[in-house]
């Protein structure tokens, strides 16, 4: 939390644009942090919920002439519905198949956007004035920072409540939590709803800020990208995703001259991070953090 206002200082054009992206992906990163790492739900459809929020906002305002805020809200609701549906329909399967089904959805979705080209613009994308036209770029930038901080605060708050502790319990031992007599299904649906809504809202915010979205922006790589924000930064600590988002967004900016090698680089980084944490994803990450912290701070 304390880290966030310090970045208000950057108000120059380029730095502002880049940090804006950091915040927008930070929202998605915290969604992944909350749903995958803190609640233990093997969901990989972050790019889908984000895209639904984004596309619904554009399509509803531009094609159906809805008011902007109603469109954003409905977009977030739609993302919620998809996330919950994904959970409900796969709840009989084992975790691994849930990951796969949601990941396949992340592959399917850009294809669907391309197939629906007349509405969505497919690969050539859609332009969108939205909030930028309404309040101006600088105000929007501050709004993004403010909203990101609010969302992060919300996630921290919820993990501190009873609901949050039950979700932690579910992530640690699902069956035990059930035998204790808690209705884990109810809490999982709640987790998916929160994650879906915020991810959808974040997607809407994203498209308002960037003013453009195409099927290329929401390729399946994006979902992995989002997933690795908390993983790289450290999922045990609340500021982990912040480090992760800085890393994931700033490194490509530094690597612009060799952009064609970006995927190779990220694929290798992802694998290395996992291999350095032999006991799984969450444990030992603090040790890694201590190693990586001085380099990045």
């Amino acid at each position, binding site marked *: 939390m304390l880290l966030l206002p310090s970045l208000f200082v950057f108000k120059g054009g380029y730095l502002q644009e880049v940090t804006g992206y950091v915040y927008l992906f930070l929202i998605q990163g915290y969604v992944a942090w909350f749903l995958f790492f803190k609640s233990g739900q093997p969901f990989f459809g972050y790019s889908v919920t984000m895209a639904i929020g984004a596309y619904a906002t554009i399509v509803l305002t531009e094609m159906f002439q809805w008011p902007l805020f109603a469109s954003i809200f409905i977009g977030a609701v739609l993302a919620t519905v998809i996330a919950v549906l994904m959970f409900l329909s796969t709840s009989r399967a084992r975790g691994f198949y849930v990951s796969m089904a949601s990941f*396949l959805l992340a592959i*399917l979705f850009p294809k669907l956007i391309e197939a629906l080209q007349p509405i969505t613009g497919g690969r050539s994308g859609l332009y969108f004035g939205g909030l930028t036209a309404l309040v101006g770029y600088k105000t929007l930038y501050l709004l993004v920072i403010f909203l990101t901080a609010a969302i992060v605060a919300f996630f921290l708050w919820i993990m501190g409540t009873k609901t949050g502790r039950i979700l932690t319990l579910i992530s640690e031992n699902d069956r035990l939590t059930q035998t204790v007599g808690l209705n884990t299904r109810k809490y999982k649906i709640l987790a998916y709803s929160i994650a879906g809504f915020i991810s959808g809202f974040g997607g809407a915010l994203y498209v308002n800020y960037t003013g453009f979205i195409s099927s290329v922006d929401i390729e399946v*790589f994006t979902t*992995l990208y989002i997933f690795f924000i908390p993983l790289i930064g450290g999922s045990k600590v609340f500021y982990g995703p912040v480090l992760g988002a800085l890393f994931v967004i700033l490194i490509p900016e530094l690597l612009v001259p060799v952009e064609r090698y970006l*995927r*190779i680089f*990220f694929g290798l980084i992802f*694998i290395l991070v996992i291999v350095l944490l032999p006991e*799984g994803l969450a444990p030992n990450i603090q040790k890694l953090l201590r190693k990586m912290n001085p380099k990045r701070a």
Partner: protein
Amino acid sequence: MILNGIITGLIMGGILSLPVLGVAVIYGITGIPNFAIGVIGVFGGFLTWYFLSFNMGIAILVGVVFCFAIGYIIQRILLTPISERGGDSTLFFIITVSLGFVFEGLMRAIFPRPSISLALPRIGTINIAGVTVEGFKIFALLFALGTLVIIRLLEEHTEIGKSWQATSQNLKLAKLIGIKTNRVFSIASGIGCALACVGAIFWGSLYNLNLMTGWDLGFLGFIIAVVGGIGNIWGGIISALIMGMVMSFSGYLLGGMWQSVILYFIVILVLIVAPKGILGSERSL
């Protein structure tokens, strides 16, 4: 048109059964779901395309051998060590998908074109009940089925095959009686990737290969193999053929854009509707 669709479907399904078999070999023996094999196979297809003007035979050999080597190496230095430390499926899912991105990135970086089509000889035409089919397609189908039979025979009647079976059924005992299980894993992974490469070469000569084809082959291959039953090769072939029919007819009726949407939709549906059937399949070949 219906007959034409059926024949196309059979051929698509037959070619698809190669990566399916690749997945079945890898998952059946090592127990590791490898989603990168499709991308690696397509990478091999791109390599073959690159050397095709030089000499066809050598070009195919380069692709297939390269894929075998990559499969062998990633198993040896990455996947086996992680599985010895006790990695679960979700972890392997993330790792192999990341690996897929590395190879997709390599394809982007190395090859001049993102979408290719391999020009292999067509071997004349054959007339089946009024429909003209290229001899090459028939060859592709027969080759795919032949490979399945050969792998099955190898497994039943050779020492290597028996040690594969032993490794997949009881890893600990296989180690105790002196099977080099790590080598079995690496070879299985190599063969799986090589099969995916052969599949990709056929696919690329009949249709085309692009950066996404590898993901399609890998994920479809995995789902088909699992639905058909990892332990049941014929089940795998039948579901591959059915999938081929679905692809063929959805292509005819809806056009290319929708074809893959429909395909993934069906695959997700299968995962949702039949998780019990999927979970019930034996982990052995």
